């Protein structure tokens, strides 16, 4: 029982080995989270570099440091990189690291599928970002409007890389989506009922549904574009009678839920950080849950507000304007809940909490300019100007990324066992806050003065010069701040101050186990009796108002006239002493290995990697068919398909972990999942 915890300042567990093959074949959700975190950080520098180049060009009027074509590739890849290769994977890093720990599970439902998701992401990310080095990068904007992106107007390979790359990245997100839906539904520890799940896990749950419902739509839109480009179909051929709005509608049916896919995980992280550093339970937990679900549903009903300028008519404009205004309500509810969480709490200003508070402020600004767009007449003035650029950078940089930065400072010690440097962290925060406001706030003005987005240079004396100079200075400050973060992460990965189980005095389940957690996470599956199982033991006065149950898996109910009145509060002195997190104050002890505890651990396997590789080779072959001689292309495509199918069979007919060998491997089905 005392094995749940290591001593507060024991040396962190050394990862068993750092060999290349062990990483290539890992199925441990924490290691996969680690890979996601560092890969996405690498792409953050890459996408940030692209932004720096653009801001250098725009620092003054009439600059020709970049050509128009180079600029097109840069803004396309900046958007694509930041959305698909940075913010989504950073969120995925936290899904991987946190979801099993927060629900009291030993891994995700399908560990090998999880590894597959990561490898598809890495290879697909390289596939889509490398071409820009050879001046063949995608150049149609991150939303790649057809017919602009059809072969008539974009004959080169640029758009082919984009179409194939996004298709590949979609596979990664979908696979992860099915995996986490199953994990959250089915792997919660006894007593971890849905209304006790930490808010990050809740937001992750909503996001997985958004992913599995939104990505098929862009998959089909991209299939149409792929067929148009490679097989001469007519989906986006206006001369054949095609509708130029088809792509826009399909894209934004995906694109708007995507906005919530990007921001909800950050909301979840902030909802973890703020209670800890206010030493108060999250204010209005059920309302936070319901507003998250409502945002998810409404998110599918607002897409056409991206298209007011195309002229859809008064009815469509009205409907989508109204739904857009509606979705601001649950979002605003969250802002107020965070403020009331801090209200009256003893707020500690660490880097993590400063970034979280920064999100609340910055996202509010982005949210308000968002509501401005919901009115079609106002939107007509703002659309395609720098005002919109300002809006979505406040939402995605001030919102998503600042939330994710808060998450990095907060959870890095859980992942590595070492704290990040707080001094450097504060430098990062302040430079980041000042720089991003200096970069993005003036864009509101340059936009309202009429500066269109995506122009590669501009003439002097239009009133934009000063604003652009300020934006450029701000952008470079942000770039420098990001380097501080990366330096901090690299230097303190193994040398930072030791964290112990619970460096921040947090209340949720992941803080009851050692940092970094042992491969099996929980020596014994915990039994959860409230929303803050760790606080129940360390600071019961904090959780007095939170519903409790005695044993975890049953409701403590009061009968009122034969009707159950639901959960009641159990006084601290009557709570079971040995709840989850028992042994928090246990004496120093060695953390036993999985073998010693008899916990089966999935085999290390490279099969998911090779299956992922097959997909990339397939799409590579497809692109090669654009050559004069089509034979090599089709040969490579066939090779990729064979690797994919062979890899799948090889994977699905092999057991996940030792125990299954005796149970009789019944995994012959070509289904991508093998139960844990």
């Amino acid at each position, binding site marked *: 029982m005392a094995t749940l915890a290591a001593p507060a300042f024991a040396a962190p567990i050394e990862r068993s080995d750092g060999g290349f093959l062990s990483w290539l074949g890992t199925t441990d959700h924490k290691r996969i989270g680690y890979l996601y975190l560092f890969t996405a950080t690498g792409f953050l520098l890459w996408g940030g570099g692209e932004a720096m180049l653009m801001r250098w060009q725009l620092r003054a009027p009439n600059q020709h440091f970049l050509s128009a074509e180079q600029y097109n590739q840069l803004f396309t890849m900046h958007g694509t990189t930041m959305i698909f290769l940075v913010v989504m994977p950073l969120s995925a890093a936290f899904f991987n690291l946190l979801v099993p720990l927060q629900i009291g599970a030993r891994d995700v439902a399908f560990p090998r599928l999880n590894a597959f998701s990561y490898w598809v992401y890495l290879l697909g990310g390289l596939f889509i970002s490398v071409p820009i080095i050879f001046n063949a990068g995608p150049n149609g904007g991150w939303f790649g409007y057809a017919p602009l992106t059809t072969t008539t107007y974009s004959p080169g390979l640029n758009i082919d890389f984009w179409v194939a790359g996004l298709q590949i990245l979609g596979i990664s997100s979908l696979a992860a989506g099915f995996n986490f839906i199953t994990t959250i539904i089915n792997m919660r520890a*006894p007593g971890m009922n849905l209304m006790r799940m930490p808010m990050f896990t809740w937001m992750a749950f909503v996001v997985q549904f958004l992913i599995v419902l939104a990505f098929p739509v862009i998959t089909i839109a991209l299939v149409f574009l792929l067929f148009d480009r490679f097989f001469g179909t*007519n989906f986006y051929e206006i001369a054949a009678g095609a509708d130029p709005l*088809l792509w826009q509608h*399909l894209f934004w049916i995906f694109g708007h839920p995507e906005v919530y896919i990007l921001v909800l995980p950050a909301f979840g992280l902030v909802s973890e950080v703020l209670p800890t550093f206010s030493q108060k339970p999250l204010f209005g937990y059920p309302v936070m849950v319901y507003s998250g679900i409502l945002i998810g549903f409404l998110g599918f009903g607002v897409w056409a507000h991206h298209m007011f300028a195309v002229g859809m008519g008064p009815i469509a404009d009205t409907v989508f304007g109204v739904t857009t205004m509606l979705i601001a309500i649950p979002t605003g509810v969250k802002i107020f809940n965070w403020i009331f969480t801090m209200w009256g709490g003893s707020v500690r200003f660490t880097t993590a909490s400063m970034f979280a508070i920064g999100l609340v402020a910055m996202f509010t600004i982005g949210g308000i300019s968002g509501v401005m767009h919901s009115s079609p007449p106002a939107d007509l003035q703002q659309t395609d100007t720098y005002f919109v650029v300002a809006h979505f950078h406040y939402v995605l940089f001030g919102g998503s990324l600042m939330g994710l930065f808060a998450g990095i400072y907060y959870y890095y010690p859980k992942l590595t066992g070492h704290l990040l440097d707080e001094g450097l962290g504060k430098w990062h925060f302040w430079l980041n806050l000042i720089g991003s406001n200096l970069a993005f706030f003036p864009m509101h003005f340059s936009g309202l003065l009429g500066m269109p987005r995506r122009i590669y240079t501009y003439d002097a004396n239009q009133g934009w010069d000063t604003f652009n100079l300020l934006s450029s200075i701000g952008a470079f400050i942000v770039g420098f701040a990001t380097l501080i973060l990366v330096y901090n992460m690299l230097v303190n990965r193994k040398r930072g101050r030791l964290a112990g189980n619970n460096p921040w005095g947090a209340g949720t389940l992941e803080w009851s186990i050692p940092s970094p957690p042992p491969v099996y996470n929980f020596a014994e599956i915990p039994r959860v009796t409230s929303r803050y199982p760790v606080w129940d033991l360390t600071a019961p006065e904090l959780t007095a108002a939170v519903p409790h149950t005695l044993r975890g898996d049953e409701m403590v109910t009061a009968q009122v006239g034969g009707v159950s009145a639901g959960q009641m509060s159990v006084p601290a002195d009557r709570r079971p002493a040995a*709840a*989850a997190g028992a042994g928090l104050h246990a004496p120093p002890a060695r953390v036993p290995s999985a073998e010693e505890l008899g916990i089966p651990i999935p085999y290390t396997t490279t099969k998911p990697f090779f299956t992922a590789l097959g997909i990339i080779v397939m799409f590579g072959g497809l692109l090669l068919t654009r050559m004069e001689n089509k034979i090599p292309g089709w040969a490579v495509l066939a090779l990729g398909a064979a690797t994919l199918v062979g890899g799948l*069979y090889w994977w699905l007919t092999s057991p996940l972990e030792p125990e299954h060998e005796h149970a009789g491997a019944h995994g*012959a089905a070509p289904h991508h999942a093998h139960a844990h």
Partner: protein
Amino acid sequence: MDSFAMPDVIVPAAGVEHTYTTTGLPHRKIGIWAFIGSECMLFASLISTYLIYKGRSVVGPFPHEAWTDPSTGHHFRAILNIPVTSASTFVLLMSSLAMVLALAAVENRDKPKVTMGEKILGSSKLWLFMTALLGTTFLGFQAFEFTSFVHEGVSIRTNLFGSSFFTLTGFHGAHVTAGVLWLCTMLAVDFKRGLGPKDALNVDIMALYWHFVDVVWIAIFTLVYLIR
């Protein structure tokens, strides 16, 4: 609840702990249902596009009306062949029947079978084979349909109808093909070592996928073929 008596912390009995799931349901079945939900959106996008582009092709041939090419004077009859597709629809429906019988046979493998009827109904090999055979027959119908359409003058490049029709039905056909491969794999396992109740879950998720593909065809048959 008392039957689940536990020590103070959480120590479900060894063995139980490993297969413990919150809902008592197996992971893979939840996974396949989430996948099917996602597929709903995939086919919704394809079907929407077909319907949006219906009647918007600039040139023929058309699915439900005859058309004379003004430049060549060549006459094309209405393309869709309802009798053939009705037959293939029936075949796919019957494959779903064979699939549920295969699942029932796997689940009841250990029950004694005496009469000829019980033996036939209880043969998972027979019903898996029948499902795969009917699925392949459906694909044969589709291959016949596609080639005859191309011969009659409508390919995936001809017009909006051709593009959206071949892509929609082609995606469905690709799903059927994947299902047939899955069925054949399962049949091979059945021949190799016999499928029993412990394999019922694997057959069940395959059956769910197969029926979903059938259900999509039900929608396609009405929306594409019958409604003019």
